[in-house]
């Protein structure tokens, strides 16, 4: 029974949603609209669930002294700090339970939450993303080797797109006469993106779409049950 009821709910909801796409009138359209609202409410609660899960997982790692457990303390402290500051003094347009924290705001220029967001969080995220450039450069040096015909083609295409997507590409081949403009690097790059890349991507997208349809049907029909947990 514990598994049958969720399976039945999934089946009914799935079937109603599919029917409502073809018959968007009463009662299907109406039920589908209500279900969408339920989804949005559940999605809101999922954020809270995510935060609780983050807390639980990190606490578990600290308690069991797992590898690099000290870093997890930092994660939890940062989490508690941001949540507390947000609750106490609010964010840019919303007051917290202690008001707007005018004394602190006058000292640091903005509300404490916004100060941390602008000066710590934003910069940390930008730093993490920027570090990728260094790893990509190092990985490209090691991985882009012309060992086979396929890898050579990939290598040439990558170099052409890399050059064509920069202003250097325009500068390098900008002098070409009109009759040879098809060799202009930005044009070559645009061509590669527009035709071979798009063709490949479409094949992947169509394949993925069939996969999604298959998985959805398996879930609706109760064949795929892993989302219920257990075996």
């Amino acid at each position: 029974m514990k598994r049958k009821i969720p399976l039945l709910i999934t089946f009914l909801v799935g079937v109603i949603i599919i029917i409502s796409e073809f018959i968007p009138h009463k009662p299907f359209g109406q039920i589908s609209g209500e279900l969408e609202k339920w989804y949005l409410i559940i999605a809101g609660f999922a954020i809270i669930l995510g935060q609780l899960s983050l807390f639980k997982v990190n606490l578990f790692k600290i308690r069991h002294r797992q590898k690099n457990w000290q870093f997890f303390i930092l994660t939890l402290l940062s989490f508690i700090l941001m949540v507390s500051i947000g609750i106490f003094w609010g964010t840019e347009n919303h007051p917290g339970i202690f008001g707007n924290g005018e004394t602190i705001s006058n000292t640091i220029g903005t509300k404490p939450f916004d100060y941390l967001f602008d000066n710590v969080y934003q910069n940390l995220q930008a730093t993490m993303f920027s570090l990728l450039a260094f790893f990509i450069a190092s990985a490209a040096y090691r991985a882009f080797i012309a060992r086979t015909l396929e890898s050579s083609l990939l290598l040439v295409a990558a170099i052409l797109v890399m050059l064509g997507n920069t202003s250097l590409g325009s500068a390098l081949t900008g002098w070409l006469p009109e009759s040879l403009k098809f060799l202009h690097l930005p044009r070559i790059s645009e061509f590669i993106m527009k035709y071979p890349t798009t063709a490949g991507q479409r094949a992947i997208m169509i394949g993925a779409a069939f996969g999604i349809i298959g998985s959805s049907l398996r879930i609706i029909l109760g064949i795929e049950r892993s989302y219920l947990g257990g075996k």
Partner: protein
Amino acid sequence: MSENIKKKQIDRRWIFLLLFISVALPLIFVIGFPIETTENARLVYGLIEQTPKGSKVIISFDYDPASKPELHPMGKALMKHCFDRDIKVIVTALWPMGVQMAEDIYSDLKDNYPDKKYGEDYVNMGYKAGGIVTIQAMGKNFRDIFPQDMNGTSIDELPILDGINNFDNLGFVFALSAGDPGIKQWVQIAHDTFGRPVSGGVTGVSAPAVIPYVNQQQQLIGLLAGLKGAAEYELLTKTPGTATKGMDAQSVAHLIIIIFIIMGNINYWRNKKAEKKGVE
């Protein structure tokens, strides 16, 4: 990785150092390489130019600070273009941090547009969880999904939202997207289901997966891809900003990466030749 490739490789710290220098120097000493516009950027520009004055549009800020260098310049140039053309901007966010990203741009621009009033020419509806379902629900009843803006002002007190009950009275939707949920979901629902024009800007790395939507069915009207897309749009709107400045650094960084790739290949073939000789 084969032994051949591992042999005689440059220490990765040298690669890191050279890349750092190649990015930093052009930001300090501007080279000024020429920027050319692509058809996709011109399509985006054309869409805004053809949108009648006074139209209301949605700009969805679906990114966070990690993608700020690429998407923020696009957002800024786009919002500026909309204000210049008297297009009214309704901001939504499918990513929690998108709200602050939009506010950051608006606070930068509002001093230059003293006649633009919050609630009349611009509104930020805040973040809404739910991704594709949120868009679908917005298309059916916008006022149900966003009963108030991010400041808690009721939708009925915001003149910009008069007559906005779904997507019907919108000029277009523009998604600034760093991933999922984002531009794909806007295309699938706002265009494919409700038939509204959709355009957007994405990070360079996700562009190949989105470009197929720029097609004859006009699922997407143009696309701004990465820093170059942002720089192209800045050029078209004649508002050079951070993207234009960053193009020199990107060009030199790409060149350095290409040089390293060539060096890696020379190393590989030289080692392969030496190995063959050894066997003989």
